[in-house]
């Protein structure tokens, strides 16, 4: 009996050490948002560890890393940036140029320039949404370009077997193309319909499907204040909007307040930060279905 226990313990120890060794041997890839995390994991499989260092609750666009975070990031094998002005911290640190890849470098001619507003909320300090719309991946065609950039970066650095990455990229491309077709079909009835959003995240999504989305500047998932609701009512009246997109699910009472203003609520988590309860593609499908249903209800 004692021998069996000893052998079991020895085997367990050996497995633990082997797992630890594999984990230590794996390359490390840093990403700046959840969407890139999803694409990189899909393309790399188990070949590398993909790390999204932004903690839950922080807006990855305006996250302020610690010195220890940057030390970890500087030592990574590959650092995948979103580009389009996403993640302000990347301009406030020294990063190893040879290991940085801007995943939107090939689509810069398709960037959307936005209006400028400086403000502050949460822990991110004062910031502005000026310059370039940065949620590029919400257009599936742009997401394909970003996935292709990741695949090229991974293969050129031998972080995974080329044939595996090529196969995974083909699969990802196919899924994104199907997602695009689904959205195009489901959203065709919303062309010309005024839609409101709680935060300016959906510019590329709107352009792709010819939607008219105007944005507020509410905190994600928070209960709107009376001032927020007054702004919402004014904008909804001005634009004759009947649909409100929420960046994150708010308290249930918030839905009731906006429904009282005649707005149908649709939650569309854009997949930038941690804590998205469903996968990136599932969230996209649910949002598209929700918008289609909201359009149907508002026309009844």
């Amino acid at each position: 009996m004692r021998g069996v226990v000893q052998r079991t313990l020895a085997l367990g120890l050996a497995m633990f050490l082997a797992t630890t060794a594999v984990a230590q041997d794996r390359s490390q890839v840093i990403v700046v948002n959840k969407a890139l995390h999803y694409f990189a994991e899909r393309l790399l499989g188990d070949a590398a560890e993909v790390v999204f260092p932004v903690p839950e609750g922080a807006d990855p666009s305006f996250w302020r890393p610690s010195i220890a975070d940057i030390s970890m990031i500087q030592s990574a094998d590959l650092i995948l940036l979103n580009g389009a002005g996403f993640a302000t911290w990347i301009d406030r640190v020294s990063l190893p140029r040879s290991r940085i890849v801007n995943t939107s470098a090939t689509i810069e001619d398709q960037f959307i320039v936005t209006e400028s507003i400086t403000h502050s909320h949460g822990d991110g300090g004062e910031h502005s949404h000026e310059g370039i719309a940065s949620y590029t991946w919400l257009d599936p065609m742009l997401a394909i370009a970003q996935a292709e950039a990741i695949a090229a970066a991974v293969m050129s650095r031998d972080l995974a077997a080329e044939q595996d990455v090529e196969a995974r990229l083909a699969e990802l491309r196919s899924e994104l193309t199907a997602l695009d077709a689904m959205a195009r079909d489901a959203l065709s009835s919303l062309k010309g319909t005024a839609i409101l959003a709680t935060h300016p995240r959906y510019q590329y999504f709107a352009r792709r499907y010819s939607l008219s989305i105007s944005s507020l500047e509410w905190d994600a998932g928070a209960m709107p204040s009376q001032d927020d609701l007054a702004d919402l009512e004014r904008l909804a009246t001005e634009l004759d909007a009947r649909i409100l997109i929420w960046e994150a699910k708010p308290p249930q009472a918030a839905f009731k307040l906006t429904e009282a203003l005649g707005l149908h609520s649709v939650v569309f988590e854009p997949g930038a930060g941690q804590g998205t309860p469903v996968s990136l593609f599932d969230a996209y499908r649910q949002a598209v279905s929700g918008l289609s249903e909201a359009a149907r209800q508002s026309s009844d």
Partner: protein
Amino acid sequence: MIRALAVAGLAIAAPIGAAAHQLVVFASVDCEAVTVEAKFSNGRVTQQGDVRVLDGENNLLTTLQLESDGTARVALDSVDHTSGLLIEVDTGSHDNYWIVTPEDIARKCGS
């Protein structure tokens, strides 16, 4: 909390840099000092402002004033830089930061 409305404008154009009125902070390291440079994104030199130097645990190590050319020099032997340095510049109306890791310093010191 935000009250401003950002009515979306979907102007499609070539990429441009970030807009005006932002404070840009940069810090370079050699083996003796961290040189801090601050300017506004429209190119205007930041002529005055506080430079706060913090360690890896966010403890304030020292505070300096920007020189009239928008620079400040932090001698490495004047601060404990073993956990890295966080350089914050605050002009009163704008602020920004730069992170110097222990590895940044070690690289410049050839270790």
